[in-house]
């Protein structure tokens, strides 16, 4: 068991910097795996939540549910670009993470400043408090990782 452990510990990017192979553009490696997992979870959660809410009770809180749907689309798109990999995808994901961060901060501030506009919570309410603040932490880690993965 220890042999496999040490054998696979070699830096996955070590020998590939020069050959520019397809693996070089992979974003799902090392910390990127954790990132894609969390984005995947958020996508599934946000997409199914907003589909359900918009289908059954949209009139109850149109603004909140519309914003949740936007968040869901952003999460799904970032998950897709991370899995796809490559330089273009990396840039697109970086852009979306920035947009996501702006969205979380805007909606977070908005919900605190004017709670009456939101009869029900969005994914990004109170900076994502209902989701353990993952919505605000995720884009920051995402941006850090995507910048590091540049080559």
């Amino acid at each position, binding site marked *: *068991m220890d042999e*496999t*452990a040490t054998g*696979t*510990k070699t830096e*996955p990017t070590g020998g590939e910097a020069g050959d520019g192979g397809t693996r070089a553009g992979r974003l*799902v*490696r*090392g*910390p*990127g*795996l*954790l990132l*894609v*997992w*969390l984005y*995947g*979870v958020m996508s*599934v*959660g946000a997409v*199914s939540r907003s589909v*359900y809410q918009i289908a059954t009770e949209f009139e109850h809180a149109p603004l909140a549910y519309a914003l949740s749907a936007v968040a869901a689309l952003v999460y799904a798109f970032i998950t897709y670009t991370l899995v796809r990999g490559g330089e273009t995808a990396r840039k697109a994901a970086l852009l979306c993470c920035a947009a996501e961060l702006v969205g979380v901060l805007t909606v977070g501030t908005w919900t605190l400043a004017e709670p009456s506009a939101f009869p029900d919570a969005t994914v990004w309410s109170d900076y994502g408090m209902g989701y*353990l603040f993952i919505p605000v932490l995720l884009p920051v880690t995402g941006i850090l990782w995507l910048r590091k993965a540049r080559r």
Partner: protein
Amino acid sequence: MLVALTVAVSVAALALAAWCGFAALRDQPTKDWHFIGMAVVSALALVQLVIGITQLARGEKPDQGSVIFVSYLIGALLAVPMAGFLSLAERTRWGSTTVAAGAVVLAVLEVRLHDIWGG
């Protein structure tokens, strides 16, 4: 019955998270024993899904609706196995970290399940 299972799954999930988090701290990938642990946790989640659906079939109603209840049960069943599959492809500490994160997600889902059922 359902409450007992929810507690059992939560505790097992947190234990798995701690175990895999420990492996990640020691810079180790997930190993056979971790996968057995994931299988145990997933089996518990499967039992929970079956019992939950049985309760619904017997006419009991969750506070926040059956659709949400069943979606969360399915999500709870999938969380750990999905993270486990990802960790098979990433034989580094980050594979272990991902499984630990998956187990934490499961524990959170259990708390939500408890609210949804209205226990």
